[in-house]
């Protein structure tokens, strides 16, 4: 009896907490305190001359430069003024072009390996060996082969996206609950129905995990490719600003890449959640 009252009390106070404005303010504070502290420390450190402003510019300067990069209205970014959209677009479409072919081919090959022992023998050893070569090690060869331009960039990004998509697709097929497969066969499903209505939906969560990893890798590789192989994109901007000692532009560009990477990841997550409304598991950390 006593215990019941306690737990009911705890529940009540939790409901009250949600309405309590002090409680809500404290939650906002929990989210804000660390980023705010970092920014403040950075700003103050720069103001008191702990670091030189042109070496490590304060957040206010970075923000100002970023604003001019995007709008071209204050000339704070000088030669880079107003170029942001072109660079951001160049990077974004390279990411999606490379990600597109890499993921599509990766899913296809991964499913083949998972579905057929023969295909596994044909492709799996090669995939397993090649995936241990860091994609960055492919840079010289792809420059020799494709020359300077979009082609090596899209090749490298696609190559990086291929492996997680392929490996997770294979895994997705292999971890299918055999009981579901047997049940469908017992009910009279033919090969095509088994593939389309049992194997693919059952493998989908794992396939989409691979797709999400591929998107992350694509943003890493677009920077590598743009530093080395092309004269546009945020990776190019980053490197060029570094060469001209514009560290404020460097930091604004880094943050831009982070932001676009984050938005791309959200895009994949939204697509995943639309496809997998059924796959909500209860976990310690809640849903992700």
């Amino acid at each position, binding site marked *: 009896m006593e215990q019941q009252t306690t737990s009911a009390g705890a529940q009540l106070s939790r409901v009250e907490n949600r309405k309590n404005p002090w409680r809500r303010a404290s939650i906002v504070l929990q989210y804000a305190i660390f980023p705010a502290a970092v920014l403040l420390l950075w700003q103050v450190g720069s103001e008191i001359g702990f670091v030189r402003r042109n070496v490590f510019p304060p957040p206010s300067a970075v923000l100002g430069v970023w604003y001019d990069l995007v709008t071209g209205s204050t000339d704070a970014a000088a030669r880079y003024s107003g170029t942001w959209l072109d660079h951001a677009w160049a990077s974004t479409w390279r990411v999606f072009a490379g990600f597109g072919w890499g993921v599509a081919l990766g899913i296809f090959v991964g499913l083949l390996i998972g579905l057929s022992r023969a295909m596994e023998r044909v492709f799996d050893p090669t995939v397993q060996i090649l995936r241990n070569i860091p994609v960055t090690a492919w840079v010289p060869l792809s420059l020799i082969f494709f020359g300077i331009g979009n082609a090596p960039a899209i090749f490298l990004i696609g190559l990086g996206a291929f492996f997680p998509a392929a490996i997770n697709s294979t895994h997705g097929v292999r971890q299918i*609950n055999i*009981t*579901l497969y*047997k*049940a*469908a*066969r*017992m*009910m*009279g*499903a*033919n090969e095509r*129905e088994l593939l389309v*209505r*049992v194997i693919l*939906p*059952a493998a*989908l969560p794992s396939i989409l995990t691979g797709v999400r990893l591929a998107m992350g890798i694509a943003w890493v590789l677009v920077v590598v490719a743009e530093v080395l192989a092309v004269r546009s994109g945020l990776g190019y901007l980053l490197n060029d600003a570094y060469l001209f000692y514009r560290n404020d532009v460097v930091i604004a560009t880094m943050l831009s890449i982070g932001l676009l990477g984050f938005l791309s990841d959200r895009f994949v997550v939204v697509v995943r959640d639309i496809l*997998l409304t*059924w*796959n*909500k*598991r209860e976990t310690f950390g809640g849903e992700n």
Partner: protein
Amino acid sequence: MGRISLASVIKRFETGDSVVTALDDVSLAVQDREIVTLVGASGCGKSTLLNLIAGFETPTAGQVLVDGHPVKGPGPDRGVVFQQTALFPWLSVKDNIAFGLSLRANRGKADTQQVVERMLQKTGLSAFRDRHPAELSGGMRQRAAIASVLAINPSTLLMDEPFGSLDSLTRSIMQDFLLEIWEEQRKTVVLVTHDIDEAIYLADKTVVMTAHPGRICEVIEVALPRPRRYDMRSGSPYIALRDHVTQIVRTEAIKGGALSAVN
């Protein structure tokens, strides 16, 4: 339709360089519309026997006939209810029940909408039609799985420890649910269990099996009146049967244990 006969069936499994005899010279006849339960210690091959009838396995020697024809593979005439509920997690309860009828092989066999409605009603899941399996309790999940198998209207139900993962209260409710369906549809049922009470309460015939190698030890006619009622479990005919089966299973299990200790 749903006559099953096994004639001198042997099933061996090769694992690496050792050969395990799962079933050794097993003969068994199941009449049409009969409920036969298979009971025995683990490793006695009762699930293997069920898999042979279902067509998931082929016998090493001997014959498995259903309605006089050798089993060539799994098919919708023999509906299998698995211990691990075979529901597609991405489909709602009603779509799971409709799944079998939506397959090319079963198209046009029945009005899917009508069958789904009937099954939902029969299993008491009408209010949960749009839920996904993960949102159901264990008992509801197994009822939905049974409904999805009944929807394709098999002549035989093959059940592999269907209630094994349920708590004992839910299990006894599910047993009465199964009997209720059987009274109505009179399908042939072969049910594997390690629960002796369940084996007797449901059965026309209880087959007691022994392990290493799997053999049929005794076939016991359960001459309790139908429809079965829960209170029969405290009657003396039932208790006599249960004591008898328990004795065999225990003796064989101990013998099996002693043998494997020597091995």
